C-alpha cells in the first residue's frame, strides 16, 4: 500500500468526523499492535485519512520523535488519547510534552511498529539462504557465524515480521541463553527489568507480553545448539531419522511460512495452504519426536526418561553450549576473564577463556545445592585442585534400571468414605532378577494425626509382568483432608559397576595404539573418554569408582594410581542399609596408602565404616566411599605385555521410597432409622 499522505492535504484528514476516525482505528486495529492492512476506499477523503494513519503507524523511530508535527493528525485520529496526553504533559514544558506523547503513543497506542509488508517473505528467503549456506558448508551449522545469523533472524522476526510483538521477550531470551545458565539465575533480573521498562516504552507492551514470538525463539534455541545441549543433558535418544529430519529442515523458512500474514497477499487461499502445510510439518517433525511410537526407534519407556535423569544426576554436570561460551568470550573476553578471577595471573587466551567458562558453567548447578562442592568444582575447573569427582556412565549392556515405584491403582478416588480402601500399584522392574524383598507400609496423616494403616511384604526374583496391586486401609479415617503416605522398602537391591583400565607399564610405544583402539581417542584425551568412566545400570544407587593417575585416566603406566569411589544415590529415596559394598580388585597386587579407609577382604576392597557413614546421610546424593593412594606390584607396574582389567564394584543395599497421596474423607453418613 503506497503511502499517500504526501499528496493528501492534512485538511482532508481533518475534515473527517471523529466517528469515522475511530472506525478506522478499529478497522486497522491500530492500538492492538496488529499489522495494518487498510482496504482501499473510493472516497478520496478517506483515502487521505488512511495515508495519515499508515504513516503514523509505520514510520520509523526517527520520525516518531518528530511527533509534534503530526500532533494535529494524531489529535484528529485519536482525539481522546491525544487529549489525555496533553493533560498529562500540560505544564511540563516542551520536553515534558514530548515524553508524555511518547509514552502515550508508545505504550497506549503502540505506534512504534517496525514491521513492513512482505517481511515474512523476506524471512522465508533469508531462511533458505542461511540453510543453503550451511548445506554448502560455507558456514558451519554450529559456528559463531551461524549463531550470529540466527540471532539476527530472531530479532528480525520479532521486529519486522511480528511488528515488534515479543521483541523485548526475544531480546531477553537471547541475553539469557548467552549469558545465563539453567536453573534460572536471579542476577538476570538486574538486566531484565531495565530492558523490560525501556522496551515497553519504546516498543509497547505487546513487545513484552505477546508470546507469538515463542515459535521463532524455539527455532533460535535449536539453531544455536542449545537444543542439542538439552538433548545431551537429558540423555534423550533422538532417532537418527528424526535427527536428520530436524537437521535438514530450513527452520527459519518454515517459521516464515508459519508467520505468513495471508491478508497481505492476493492469493490468500494458496498462502493459507502453505502456512497450514508448514504448521503440519512442524507438528509432525517436532511433536512427533516427543510422542512414543512415532519418532522413536523404539517406544521410550519411563525407564528411559529415568535413565536420562539418572545419568544427569549421577554427576554428569553439563555446562553451557561451547558456542555460547565462544560467543561470550569473543564478545567480552576481558569481562569474562575478570569474572573468572584470572586477573591476578594475567589475561586468558580465547581458548583458555572458552575452556574455563565451559568448566565453570558445569559447576553452576552445584551453587545452590552444595556450596562446598561448588567451590571444589570451581577450584578443579581453574586447575587449582585435583578433580576427585567420579562421573559414571550407563552401561549399554545393562541399560534397564532395577526400580520400583508406587502409583495410584485402578479405581483410585480422591474422595472416599472413612472405611474405604484406597487402591495402589507397586510397579517393580527387576531386569537382572535380583531377589528383592518388599516391605510396604501405609500411614494416614491428617494434620498432626497419624494413623497406621495396613502393610504387607512380598518377595520376587523375577520381573513382574504386571504391577503388584494393593490397598491402604484402616478401620476409620477421620473426615476431611488428609493423605496416605505409602512407604516401600526394597531389600536386596544389587548394582554392579565396571571400570575398564589398561596397564601399559613402560611400553610407551603401544600407548597410542591402545588409546585409539580401546578408548577411541589419543592417550592425551583418554581421560575424557566415556569408555574410561565407570559404567553400570541406571539404578537408584551405584558405587562408582575410578582408578589411575590421575584417576580419570584409563591408561596406567608406571606411576602408582589413586582410587576414588563414591556411592551415588540418584533415585530420590533413601539408603536404609548396605549389606555389602566392595570393589573387586587384585588386592594382592595393590597396597593401600596410609590415609586409605579401605581394607582388603579376599579379592575385594571394602570400607568397614560405610554403614555408619550412610546411616547419617541416607538421602545424600553422593557419599565418599574411598579416596586412596595405591601402590602397584611390579606385575602391574611393568607388565611384559600391556593388559586390560575390568574391575567391578558391587553394592547390595536396602532402599526406601515414600509417596504421598492426598485424600478427602467424607463425613460419615447418618444411619437411617
Amino acid at each position: 500500500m503506497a503511502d499517500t499522505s504526501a499528496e493528501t492535504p492534512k485538511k482532508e484528514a481533518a475534515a473527517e468526523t471523529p466517528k469515522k476516525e475511530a472506525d478506522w482505528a478499529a478497522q486497522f486495529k491500530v492500538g492492538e499492535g496488529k499489522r495494518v492492512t487498510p482496504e482501499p476506499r473510493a472516497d478520496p477523503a478517506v483515502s487521505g485519512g488512511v495515508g495519515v494513519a499508515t504513516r503514523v503507524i509505520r514510520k520509523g523511530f526517527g520520525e516518531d520523535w518528530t511527533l509534534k508535527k503530526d500532533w494535529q493528525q494524531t489529535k484528529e485520529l485519536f482525539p481522546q488519547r491525544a487529549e489525555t496526553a496533553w493533560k498529562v504533559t500540560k505544564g511540563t514544558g516542551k520536553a515534558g510534552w514530548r515524553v508524555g506523547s511518547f509514552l502515550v503513543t508508545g505504550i497506549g497506542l503502540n505506534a512504534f511498529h517496525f514491521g513492513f509488508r512482505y517481511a515474512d517473505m523476506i524471512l522465508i528467503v533469508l531462511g533458505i539462504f542461511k540453510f543453503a549456506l550451511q548445506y554448502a558448508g560455507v558456514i558451519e551449522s554450529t559456528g559463531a557465524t551461524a549463531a550470529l545469523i540466527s540471532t539476527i533472524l530472531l530479532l528480525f522476526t520479532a521486529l519486522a515480521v511480528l511488528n515488534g510483538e515479543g521483541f523485548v521477550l526475544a531480546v531477553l531470551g537471547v541475553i539469557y541463553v548467552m549469558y545465563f545458565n539453567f536453573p534460572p539465575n536471579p542476577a538476570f533480573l538486574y538486566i531484565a527489568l531495565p530492558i523490560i521498562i525501556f522496551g515497553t516504552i519504546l516498543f509497547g507492551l505487546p513487545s513484552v507480553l505477546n508470546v507469538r514470538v515463542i515459535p521463532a525463539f524455539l527455532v533460535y534455541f535449536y539453531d544455536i545448539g542449545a537444543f542439542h545441549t538439552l538433548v545431551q543433558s537429558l540423555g534423550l535418544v533422538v532417532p537418527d531419522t528424526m535427527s536428520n529430519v530436524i537437521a535438514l529442515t530450513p527452520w527459519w523458512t518454515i517459521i516464515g511460512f508459519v508467520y505468513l500474514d495471508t491478508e497481505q497477499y492476493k492469493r490468500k487461499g494458496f498462502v493459507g495452504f502453505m502456512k497450514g502445510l508448514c504448521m503440519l510439518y512442524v507438528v509432525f517433525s517436532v511433536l512427533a519426536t516427543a510422542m512414543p511410537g512415532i519418532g522413536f526407534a523404539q517406544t521410550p519407556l519411563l525407564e528411559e526418561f529415568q535413565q536420562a535423569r539418572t545419568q544427569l544426576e549421577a554427576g554428569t554436570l553439563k555446562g553451557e553450549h561451547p558456542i555460547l561460551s565462544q560467543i561470550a568470550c569473543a564478545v567480552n573476553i576481558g569481562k569474562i576473564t575478570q569474572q573468572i578471577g584470572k586477573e591476578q595471573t594475567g589475561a586468558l587466551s580465547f581458548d583458555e577463556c572458552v575452556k574455563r567458562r565451559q568448566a565453570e558453567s558445569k559447576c553452576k548447578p552445584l551453587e545452590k545445592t552444595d556450596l562446598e562442592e561448588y567451590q571444589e568444582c570451581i577450584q578443579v575447573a581453574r586447575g587449582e585442585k585435583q578433580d576427585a569427582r567420579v562421573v559414571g556412565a550407563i552401561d549399554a549392556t545393562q541399560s534397564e534400571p532395577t526400580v520400583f515405584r508406587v502409583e495410584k491403582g485402578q479405581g483410585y478416588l480422591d474422595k472416599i468414605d472413612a472405611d474405604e480402601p484406597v487402591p495402589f500399584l507397586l510397579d517393580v522392574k527387576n531386569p537382572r532378577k535380583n531377589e528383592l524383598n518388599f516391605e510396604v507400609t501405609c500411614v494416614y496423616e491428617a494434620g498432626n494425626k497419624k494413623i497406621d494403616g495396613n502393610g504387607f511384604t512380598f518377595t520376587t526374583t523375577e520381573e513382574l509382568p504386571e504391577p503388584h496391586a494393593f490397598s491402604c486401609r484402616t478401620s476409620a479415617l477421620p473426615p476431611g483432608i488428609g493423605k496416605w503416605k505409602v512407604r516401600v522398602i526394597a531389600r536386596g537391591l544389587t548394582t554392579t559397576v565396571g571400570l575398564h583400565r589398561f596397564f601399559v607399564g613402560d611400553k610407551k610405544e603401544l600407548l597410542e595404539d591402545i588409546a585409539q583402539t580401546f578408548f577411541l581417542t589419543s592417550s592425551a584425551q583418554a581421560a575424557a573418554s566415556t569408555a574410561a568412566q565407570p559404567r553400570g545400570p541406571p539404578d537408584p544407587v551405584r558405587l562408582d569408582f575410578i582408578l589411575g593417575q590421575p584417576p580419570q585416566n584409563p591408561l596406567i603406566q608406571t606411576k602408582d594410581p589413586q582410587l576414588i569411589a563414591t556411592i551415588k544415590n540418584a533415585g530420590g529415596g533413601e539408603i536404609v542399609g548396605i549389606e555389602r559394598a566392595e570393589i573387586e580388585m587384585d588386592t594382592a597386587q595393590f597396597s593401600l596408602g596410609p590415609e586409605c579407609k579401605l581394607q582388603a577382604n579376599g579379592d575385594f576392597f571394602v570400607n568397614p565404616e560405610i554403614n555408619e557413614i550412610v546411616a547419617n546421610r541416607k538421602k545424600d546424593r553422593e557419599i565418599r566411599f574411598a579416596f586412596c593412594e595405591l601402590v602397584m606390584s611390579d606385575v602391574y607396574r611393568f607388565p611384559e605385555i600391556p593388559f586390560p582389567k575390568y574391575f567391578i564394584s558391587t553394592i547390595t543395599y536396602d532402599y526406601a521410597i515414600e509417596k504421598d497421596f492426598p485424600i478427602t474423607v467424607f463425613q460419615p453418613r447418618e444411619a437411617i432409622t
Partner: protein
Amino acid sequence: MMVLLLVSCTRSTANDPIDINFKSGTSGIELQLLANHPPRRIVEGSTFNIAVQVSNTGAYDMGVGEITVIGLDQVYTPIERQDAVIPPLKGRSESNNQGDFYVQEFSGGKTVVPPGAKEYRAKFLLVAAYEYMNVVGKDVCINPALIEIESEQASCQIQDRIRLSGQGAPVAVTQIEETVSPVGDDVKIDFILTIDNRGRGKVVSPILISDVRLGTKPLTCNKREITMFELENKRNTVVCSRTEQRQSAYTSPLSATLQYMYKTTEEGEFVVQRSR
C-alpha cells in the same frame, strides 16, 4: 590362412615372463583376521579361537618377528598364549609373486560375562613387530662439470631432485637430491636422501642406513641412523658424499640399505553373550 598368419603375428603375452617391479609399493608384513575366527558372537562358557593370516607382501625377506594379542581380559576372555614368534617369511619375488604367508592361531579359554551385564564386548589388538629392510637403487647422473656450458653438453643431466615412490617396504627413500661442489681440483658430490615411513604401521627402532654406494664405490654419510624422534619430527634426511676427480659425465646406480623394526596392527572384536 590369413587369419592364422595374423594370429601368429600378434604379440604373445601368456607365456612371457611377467614384467613386474616387485621392489615397489609400501607394504611389509600384513595381518588379516580370518573370517569367523573368532565368530562375531559367542555364548558365555564357550571357547574362542583367533586366527590371523600373516603375509609378507613386501619385497624383502622378513628377519625376526613377533605377534602379540593385546586387550583380552584374562578373567572374561582368557587366552592361553598372548604372543608368538613369526617364522621367517620371504618377500615377493619373481618366483613367489604373493610373498610368504602363514596362519597364526591363538586359543582362548572359557568365556565369562561380567555380573549384571547381558553381554561382554571383547576387543583386541594384534600387534606384529618385525625386522625389515629395503634397498634403494636409482641411476643417477654424475657430472663433475661445473661450468654450465660443459654441463649441457654432457651425456647425462643431473636432476636436482629425484622423487621416489616405495621400494617394496614400508619405509622408503622418497627423495634424492644431488649437488656438486668443487674441492680443489676435485669435485664433491653430495646426495641428500630423504627417508619416510610410507607404510600403515609405525617404525619402532632407529633406521640404520648402511651400504650406501655409488656403483661399487662407497659413500660417506653424515649419520648412520635416523632415530624415531627424528623421523617423526621431519629431520629425516641423511647426506652421503663422495669426492671425485673431474671427469666426463656418467650414469651410475646409487644404492643404500635401510634396516629397522616395524610394527603393524590389526583390530578385532567379538561379543560374549550371556547364556539364557
